[in-house]
């Protein structure tokens, strides 16, 4: 497995700490399943901490986009936290950096969600 993910809660926000690579296969499926489970449990504020993710391929990008739209269509918000330079570069060249709400501080990120 190239990706690890653990979920915790702070201030009513579900924070998922990922580490490793988000690539085609088991890793992207893990992201999909975790988002699906959080949404099924009624969680509408989701923060993906990608501080230890240094590699995302096109399938991984697709999975993040899918997570974003799934949560948004359900009336919730999904934000990204602590992006590495490579992930920032990737989101910038694919024009997705401005689509996602990208946060750099956990405390600020938690309080940026709509009440």
């Amino acid at each position, binding site marked *: 497995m190239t990706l690890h993910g653990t979920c915790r809660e702070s201030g009513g926000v579900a924070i998922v700490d990922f580490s490793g690579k988000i*690539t*085609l*296969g088991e890793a992207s499926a893990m992201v999909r399943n975790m988002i699906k489970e959080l949404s099924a449990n009624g969680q509408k504020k989701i923060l993906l901490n990608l501080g230890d993710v240094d*590699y995302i*391929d*096109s*399938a991984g*990008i*697709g*999975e993040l*986009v*899918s997570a*974003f*739209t799934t949560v948004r269509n359900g009336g919730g918000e999904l934000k990204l936290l602590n992006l590495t330079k*490579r992930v920032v570069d990737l989101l910038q*060249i*694919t*024009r*997705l950096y401005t*689509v996602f709400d990208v946060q750099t501080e956990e405390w600020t990120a938690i309080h940026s969600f709509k009440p």
Partner: protein
Amino acid sequence: MTTPSHRIEVTLESMIESVDLAEGIVMRICEAAGFTEEDSHKIGMSVREAVINAYHYGNREDRAKKILFTVELNAEKMTVRVLDQGPGFEVEEVPDPLSEENLLRTSGRGIFLMRAFMDEFVVNNPPTGGAELVMAKRLPVGGNGNLSGGGRDKES
């Protein structure tokens, strides 16, 4: 025309593990050739995207079909070829992932990333069938385009 000083050819199975295998092979060659870590990352990711393209879109994950993966290295550049056994495609017909209506699509960024990360990128539809993605990256100054003093390796 420059004669390749080193050539590695691998026949890959149409399976997801081939994606990591091809990326691993090219990353080792990148390191030996003297590419920077950043360029190696870009080449590795481009190879990853090319093999995903061949495995998923070209061969439609059909285990009976193969992927021919070739890396050529000469004094000027590294050239990677990925040939599948699918129906082929016209690269001009691939939707632009940067256009507003495609931004939230969950797929279709692979070709764009290969173009962005490599110095050269073309798609051939050879008469023998399939799609061949050909991409190249110029060697850095002081790079090593002659890893073993010439020769031709073949693996399968």
